[in-house]
Structure formats: C-alpha cells, structure tokens
C-alpha cells in the first residue's frame, strides 16, 4: 500500500511537472495495478542466441466476454529450461474491476510448456469465443476457448503444431469460406543441439560472442481451416511457403488492393519482405519486389521486424509502416492504388531522424482521436551484451510515439507523452486497445525479463470517437477481414478487423475511429468477408457499438463525453 501510494505520488508529481511544460497532444501514464502482472521467471538479459532474443508477443482480448480487455503475454524461457521441458508458454491476466489484473493462467488451463514467441487470437471455430494460438520454438499451441476464460489445448486434434522456430502468426479467412485460417512465419533454423559457437561467422557481432542472423531460415506455414475444427497445412500449395527460407518475422493480413480478399504481408529479417496478393483461388502471387515494399527505396535489404496498416491518407487505401533493426529507418509506405507503394518516410519526417533504435512492435492508432492515425513503436536492442560496445544502440531504449499532424507529417513525442517516465526496458511486442473503455486507445507493451507495461491513454481533448465491435454470422464470428468505412462531415476513414499483426502480437479486435470535431457518423459502411455490405446512417459518436452481420447495431455502450479537462488525468 505504501509502495502504491508512493508510486501514485510520484506519478502525480511528474504529471504536474509535465503540465508545467506544454502537454503533448497525446499522453499516457503507466499504471501499476495490484497485483502486478508478473514477469516470466527472471532470466539473464545477456542473451547469446537468437532463440533467446526474439520472443515477445502480447495480446489484448476479452476472454470471457465481460466487456473488459484481458492481457495475454508470452513467457520467456532459456535453452536449459527448454531442454528440461520448457516454461508455460503464456500467462493470462484477467482484468477484474478497477483495472486489477489477476493471473488466471492455471485456472484457464493454459499450461502447455515450451518456449513462447508470439500470440494470435481469433475465434477459429466460430463459437463466439476467441481462441488463442501461441507460436514458439519447437512447437506451437492452439487453445480453444471453452468459455469463462477456460481453454483447452487442441493442437494435436487440429493439426496446428507447426514446429521449428515459429514467430509471427495472424488469422484471416483467405478463401472466404467463413472459417478462419492461420499463417505462421518462421525465423532462423535453430537446432539446440547444434548451436553456433565462437569461431563461426554466425556467432560474432563486433567481437561479442553472440548469434547473428546469417544462417538459413525456415519455410513458412499456412493452415487452412477445413471447417471441421481441423486444419491442413497448405503453404506450398498456396505459394506462400517461402522456399528460399527467408527469416520470417511479423505477419499481417490486409486487403491492400481493395478487391475484398485478404492479402498477406510478411516482414523478413535481412531479406526482402513478401507481399502476397490473393488470387482468389486459394493461391497467392508474391509481389513484394514489384510493389516497392520488399526493400528500402534504394534497393537494399533491411532488418525488417513487423508492420501495421492504416488508411493514412483517408483515401480508402491501406498504407503501411514497417519497423526495422537499428540504424535503419522506420518506413512509411503510401498505397498508390495500383498495386505499388511509395516510400513517404522522408515527407513524413521519419527518415530524417538521427536516432534510429532497434524497433520491434508497431501500430497505427489514433491516440488523440483527431481522425489521423498516429504511430507507436517499441524499441530495445537484442541483448544486454551489446551494452559493452561504446558505439552501438543500447539494450534498453525509450518508447516512441509519432503524432500525425493530419498533413502526413509525424512528430516523435514519446518523452513528452509520458511513455518514458518509468524505468527503461528492452521491448518487443505491443498490443493496442481500449483497456479502460474510455474511448482512448491504450497500449500494453512486452518487456524482456520484466512485467508488461500498461500505458493508459489519458489524452484529454474534445475530440469524438467510436469503437465498433463486429460479430460475423455468415462471415467468421470474429469478423476478421471486415472492412469499415466511417464517413463524417469532415473526413472519411477506413479500417479492417485483424487477428494478429505487428510484432507477434494481437490487438483489441474492436475497431476504433477518432472523429475529431464530428459528433455524428453520417455513414458507417461495413463490407463483411461474406460479401454482404451494410450501411448504418447517422450513428452517434462516443459509444462502443456491437454490430452483428445482417442485424445492425445490437448493443451500445456509451462512452464518457470527450473533455479537454486535464484534471481527469488521474490514475485509477
């Protein structure tokens, strides 16, 4: 109690200090709810092998349908521990009242041991309950939600074990048959019995004995949902298997060509990214090089980590942001509408940054509800061993948030936004969602060897906003792939429901739109994956709506009225 009180006091004092300067357009404060989400068993931060460096998925979802977002996070492990059977791959924290989080992993039945890497959440069996897929080293796990935040490991019977060094995962109904399919990327081929060692090219970075990603990778996996709660691995047949074994990282489904079919983006470390165009026949055409997003604008391969998409220019086309390894720019790609992308990082003032840390998780979210998506990025070097180098990026790096000024220019305001008020960490995945259902998008960040950070967005202004929870009926129940276009008096925005993305993480599936000064949405158009189009007219802002396919709005939860009153900036 004393510690909590002290924490609150420090936070208030700091908030006051910030207020003395000009408050950023966006602001967060980190909450330390009791009991605190615990870290994975403390392990060394001096990681030597890639398998130790890469994990870091985190997710926000409502496991029991109580309207409050719960948190699930992968647990770190180690080579020795894995050999001894591994650690529980994930931990589930149920959000109780007053923003308390309780570890319910054991009760939930999430007990499979291994070495977790990433998390992708969606209702694969269309029973209305979101299920959890966990990627990992050696094997992956599919947990079926039994209701009430209880889960059962159905990996074997669904044939979704995967294997190898699985990292990114994302759900989508790529063949539009109403059942969600799953893509899994895989990274460096790693054999724990034959790890690289000193003297090998793969085990030295600037004189430090640590693994570098110069070894061969592994193929990627596409699990096609047969509709009977089993899956068939069809990556090769579909043309997305990555036969050259590039080093797959973050994955993302998005309809970039606006043809109503989900396409697939795969970030590859040290290699060209893949952009697979859905050919509508169960197969894909890889168009990364031709589209312009495979390499840097001058044709170099990059250390690509993850990506997110958003309607960045309000033109109904999904643009993309991609994170990369250190000294490499955060890149913003504008969708040209003809299958190609244009690198707009320079115009967006992202390429000129003198500080380019090792970036992992990334997401577009309209943190200030002005209608323009901002960018949130999580950073941190791969191992604390790097800190011995005088000229390299540090292990613990600040978080960054780039505020979109609405003119296509982004300004980094992470410090002023309060993201770095607490202890610095080395971060990986990030998930976004309205944790406290106040209409602002919050963020939960994976910290290596430490509890996750929960950043509540306490931005206060008079901008309106809305959250939309879509439920499919003919389409998949999670409505993944559903595209919503919101039109107000002053703007038109679009987004899609996704089931996984960024760096090995999954965000709140509810779609959030900042509406600026517009209190009414003239139209909310929904293109369901089934093909059904619905249009809701004159919908009021400042609410969380549940919209069921074919039924319109079935539930409404009003949000507090937007206010610019900064006195509301009080942590709970």
């Amino acid at each position, binding site marked *: 109690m004393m510690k909590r009180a002290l924490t609150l006091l420090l936070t208030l004092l700091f908030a006051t200090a910030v207020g003395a300067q000009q408050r950023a357009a966006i602001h967060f404060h980190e909450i330390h709810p009791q009991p605190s989400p615990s870290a994975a068993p403390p392990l060394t931060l001096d990681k030597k092998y890639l398998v130790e460096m890469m994990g870091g998925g985190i997710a926000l979802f409502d496991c029991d349908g109580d309207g409050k977002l719960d948190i699930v996070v992968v647990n770190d492990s180690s080579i020795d521990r894995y050999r001894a059977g591994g650690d529980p791959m994930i931990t589930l924290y149920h959000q109780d009242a007053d923003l308390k989080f309780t570890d319910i992993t054991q009760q939930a039945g999430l007990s499979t041991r291994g070495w977790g890497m990433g998390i992708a959440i969606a209702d694969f069996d269309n029973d209305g309950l979101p299920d959890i897929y966990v990627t990992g080293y050696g094997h992956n796990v599919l947990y079926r939600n039994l209701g009430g935040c209880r889960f059962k490991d159905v990996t074997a019977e669904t044939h979704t074990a995967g294997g190898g060094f699985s990292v990114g995962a994302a759900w989508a109904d790529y063949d539009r048959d109403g059942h969600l399919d799953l893509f899994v990327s895989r990274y460096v081929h790693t054999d724990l019995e034959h790890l690289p060692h000193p003297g090998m090219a793969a*085990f030295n970075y600037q004189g430090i004995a640590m693994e570098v990603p110069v070894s061969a990778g592994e193929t990627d996996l596409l699990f096609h949902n047969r509709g009977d709660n089993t899956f068939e691995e069809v990556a090769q047949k579909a043309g997305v298997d990555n036969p050259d074994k590039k080093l797959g990282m973050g994955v993302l489904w998005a309809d970039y060509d606006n043809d109503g079919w989900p396409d697939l983006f795969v970030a590859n470390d*040290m290699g060209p990214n893949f952009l697979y165009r859905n050919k509508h026949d169960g197969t894909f055409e890889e168009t990364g090089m031709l589209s312009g997003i495979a390499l840097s604008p001058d044709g170099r391969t990059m250390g690509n980590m993850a990506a997110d998409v958003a309607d960045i220019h309000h033109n109904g086309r999904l643009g993309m942001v991609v994170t990369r390894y250190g000294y490499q720019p955060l890149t913003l790609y504008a969708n040209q509408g003809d299958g190609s992308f244009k690198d707009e990082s320079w115009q967006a003032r992202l390429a000129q940054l003198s500080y380019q840390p090792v970036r992992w998780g990334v997401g577009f979210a309209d943190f200030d509800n002005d209608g323009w998506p901002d960018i949130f990025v999580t950073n941190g070097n791969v191992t604390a061993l790097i800190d011995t180098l005088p000229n*390299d990026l540090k292990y613990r790096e600040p978080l960054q948030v780039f505020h979109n000024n609405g003119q296509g220019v982004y300004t980094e305001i992470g410090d002023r936004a309060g993201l770095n008020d607490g202890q610095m960490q080395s971060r990986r995945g990030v998930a976004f969602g309205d944790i406290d259902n106040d209409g602002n998008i919050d963020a939960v960040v994976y910290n290596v060897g430490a509890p996750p950070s929960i950043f509540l967005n306490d931005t206060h202004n008079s901008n309106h906003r809305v959250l939309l929870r879509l439920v499919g009926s003919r389409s998949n129940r999670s409505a993944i792939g559903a595209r919503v276009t919101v039109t107000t008096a002053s703007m038109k925005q679009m987004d899609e429901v996704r089931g996984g993305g960024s760096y090995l993480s999954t965000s709140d599936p509810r779609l959030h739109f900042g509406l600026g000064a517009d209190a009414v949405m003239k139209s909310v158009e929904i293109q369901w994956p089934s093909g059904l189009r619905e249009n809701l007219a004159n919908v009021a802002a400042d609410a969380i709506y549940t919209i069921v396919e074919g039924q319109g709005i079935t539930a409404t939860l009003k949000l507090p009225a937007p206010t610019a009153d900064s006195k509301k900036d009080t942590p709970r």
Partner: protein
Amino acid sequence: MRGVLLALSVLSANLYSVAQSVAHNQDQPSLQQFFDRAQSLQASGEREQAIIAYRLFLSNALERMAGNRQRIGDHALAAQQLAAASSLRPDDLSLLRLWATAERDADHLEIAKELADKWITAQSRNADAYALRGSILAKLGQTDDEIRDLERAVELDPTLDNGFALAKAYLHKKDEPSAARLFAEMLASTGDTAAIHMDIGRTYGVAGYPDQAIEEFKKALAKDGTLPGLHYSLGASYLLSMGEIDFPQASAEFHRELDLHPDDFLSHAQLGYIALNRHEYATAEQELSRAAELNPHDPDTFVSLGQLYVDTSRPADAETALRKAIALTTDPSRNHYQVQRAHYLLGRILMQTGRTEQAKAEMQISTDLLKLSTLENQGRPAAEIADRARVLHLQQPDASPFDAPNMEPVAAFEKQLAPVIAESYNNLGVLAAQGDNFTAAMDYFTHAAQWRPDLDGLDYNLGRAAYSAKAYARAVQPLGNYLLKHPGDLWFRVALGVSLYSTGDAAGAVATLRPMEPSLPSLPAIEYLYAAAEVETGAAMDGIARLTRLEAAQPKKTELHRMLGKAYLRVGDMVHAEAELRSALRLDPGDTESRHWLSDLLLKQGKQPAAAATSE
C-alpha cells in the same frame, strides 16, 4: 546486421598500366635471343640442345603473355598459358607458382590447390607457397586450414604481407584478439608509422570492424595527415560504423581528403552518397557527376546517380545511369552484389513507365542476386556460390570483361608472337619425331595448330606423328586433311585407313582403302584389315572372299581363321564358321577370342556339352 545501409567502396585501388608492361614485352631482345639460339642449334643438328632452347623460348613467351593477361584480369586465359609454359619447364617452381596463382584468380580452386600442394611438397619451407595455398583455401572457405597455412608462412617469413594476410584470416574467423596480437607484433617490428596504422586500419575496415579501423586511422593521422586515402578511409569507416549518424564526421573527412587530393573520386562519390541520403539533390548530383568524370568505370557511382534520378523523377536519366552501372559490373559479386540495387531500381523505373515484363525480369535478377548475397553473408564457400549463380543463370556474358584500351595491346602482342610460337612448336615436333618420340611430337604439333591452324605442313606432321604414336583418334583429321590435298599419297591413305578402322569407323576405312584394292595383295596386313572392315560394313561376302585368299596364302595365320570364323558367323554360315574357329584354336589353343566365339556358336546350336568343353 549493421552496415546494410551503406555501400563502401574499396578503400584503395591499384591500377597498373598495361601499356607499360606491354611496351616492356614489345622489347623482345631476350625472347628473340632464345628463338635465334634455338634455330641455330637446330640448323647445326644439335637436336637435344635445340629442343631445350625452343622450350625455353616458348615457356618465356607464354609466361610473358600470361603476365599481360593477368594484368588486365583475364585470369582464365593466363592460367591456360601458364599451364602450357609449365609443361615446357616442369621443374620451374616459379612458373608453377605463377600458374597456381592464375588458377586461383580464375576461381579454378581445386586445380590451384593441387598446384600449391605440389609446390609445398617440393619446397616445404617456402613461406610464399604456404601463403599462396592459404589464399586458395580462403576462397574455398576452409578458414581453419587457411589460418594454419598462413601461420606457417608467417613463421617461415614474417613479412608484412604474410602478417596482414593472416590477420585478415583471423578477422574473417571473428578472432579479433589474435589479429590484434599480430598487429601489435607487426608494429613492434616495423615501428609505429602512419603507413602501418593505415594498413592495419584497412584490414580492420575490410573485415567488418569499423570501430577498430577508426582507431587505427586516427593513429595514422596523428603521425601523418597527408597520406593519400587516409582521410577517405576514416570517413568510410565512420559510415560503416554508425551509418547516417556519422554523416557529419564522415563528410568532414571526405572534404579533408579532397583538400589534399582534389581528384579522389572515392571521396566525391561518398559525398554524393551522403548528400543523396540527405535529399540534397543538387549537391549529390554535383559530387556524383564529378566522381563519374574522374572514374567512368566505377559502377557504384552510376548506381547512386540512378537513385538520384529516380528520387528526382527523371526516369530516362535514371534508366541510362542504371544500365551503365549494370554494364560496368563484370563481376556481380562485386561489393556484396551491389549491382542488385541497380537491377531493382531499374525494375522500379520500368514498372513506372509501363514496361511490366521488363520490370519483372529486372526484379527477378535482383531477387536472384540477393539470394547469392545471402549465401555470401552466410559464409558459404565461393565455389558453392558460383554453382548457385550458374543455376540462376547469373554467369557473366561472353563479352570480354576487359577494357578495350587495355586489351588491345595485349592481343596485339600475342598476335605478333603467334607465328613464331607456332613455328617453334612445329620445330619441336620435328625434333621429337627425329628422336622417335612420336607422342611428344604429336603434342607439339597440336600446340602449333592451336597457334596457327594454317601452318604449312601441319597436317602432314601431325598426321604422321599421331599415327606413329598409335594415337589413331588424333591422327584421323590431319591425315584426312592431307590426303584430300594429296590423294595419290599411298602412305597417308594406308595410315588413314588403319586409323579409321582402329577408331571403329570401318566404313571410312573401306572407303579410304578401296582405291588401293588392286595393290592390296602386295600389302597383306592392309588387305587383312580391309577385309575385316568389309565384313563389318555389310560387304561380308567380299570380305570372306578376300580373307579366304589370304588364308590360302598363309594357312597358319590364326587371325585369318578367326576373322573368317567371325565373318561366317555374321552371314549365318555356322558350318564354315565352326570350322574356321576350330582351325584357329588348333593353331593357337590360347586364342580366347576364337574360343569365345566357338563356345557361343555351340550354345546357340544347343550343343551345351560341346560348348562347355570348348570353354574349359
């Protein structure tokens, strides 16, 4: 991981003037002397001495030509020339060394290693031999063996060259402490000079240790800030170390280099690269254009110019620059497959200008080159990467990779020497034949033909030598050529007929010898061969008739009975066949061929016991 942003040009370049060396080569008194002496010895009948003199002349001439070829980068042809030279002076280890080096440079690594092994076997305490083999092992990706050899080289002869080669190998193996120790020893022995620090810095820089390179260059600067390339090297290392963050420091160094050496194209190129990355397009174009003017053969400059034109929406200029970069890149692996970027950017331009299929082709090349680059990053051996390049059809086209200006005098020199070389080989052949060494003669005449296919008397000489050496396959063509022009030459006709038959061309033998039918009876051996050929070509009855006449004249010749037996078998006359074969066996019970044919005949007639008895 670090450094993917930057293309670092070679820190130093050595360019030799081929004109200078060719001018030396054109000053031929020594070659002329060798040749004159050989001619003189031949004229005076001193056969053995003449052979030695011609071999000396030829090997020196070939060695000189190979040197020229090496200098312009034509290592494959140089290797061939040195192989030929070495065959003429097989005990000359300096020639062996040159040959091994050329094979290494031509990426014929297994051959190069064999030659290096041979050298070491002959001179097990020769440091240069170990150094050479170490360099070959480096290309084969056998780093541990490479280090072992280079350590031996240093142990035997601790020169700076050997030291740096070993240090480079240590660094390639990521054994920086060993390299550092070695550098310390080198400094202690040579003294703490700017030049040695610069060389150490370059070794670190090229091996991917930019921070260490920076420290060394700074030490060099503290002693002598005017060393050519020093400021450039430091600037380049800043770029490798921290990328864009160090643009200001790097830029300052490039400017310092230009203050001292205004025509340093590398500094202009890097300043252009920096300006390009900063989107300072006017400055970028100025610097890159100047770099291109100073060195129009550097493909990297044109890649950067291409990128500049892409960024400034000048697609036509971009296409021209990128195509030039591609054309100038004779080795796609150069600078970590930098040319891949040119193909990619060109593909983007082609897409933007509606040439989709061409764009796809360029993108595919870029993708394939990236695959090779990945293999390189993975430390795969050069040979494996080369194999993969072949599979991906990324081998260089047949067009000469060498600059025309440098190539011309080299080719002219060879053309000038070709007749004399051909003549010398021819004379060697004659001398060898005079000593009944027909195999050597055949080889010499073959070499003569390679240098001058229209050399007078070549068909005559080569045909006779090959036939005399019983190298019938090699004899056929020259004998045939000569006979075409001299159809009345019976010796050649017979030789050709025998050669054709011996190489399985019975029909050719018949056709060749048919004009001699009337005189064949006076040449029983030839008539026998002719008859055998007739049998094999379907004129079996004619052959039988001929063999019967021969047998009548020489009834005790086993081979006549055998050949008749086979002939009768061919026409299905088993009775006569059996009789002839039994006759052959009576004359020579050890005639296994007749025994085999007879046994086979009896088996086909169902006479197993008789066949078995015959086989015993």
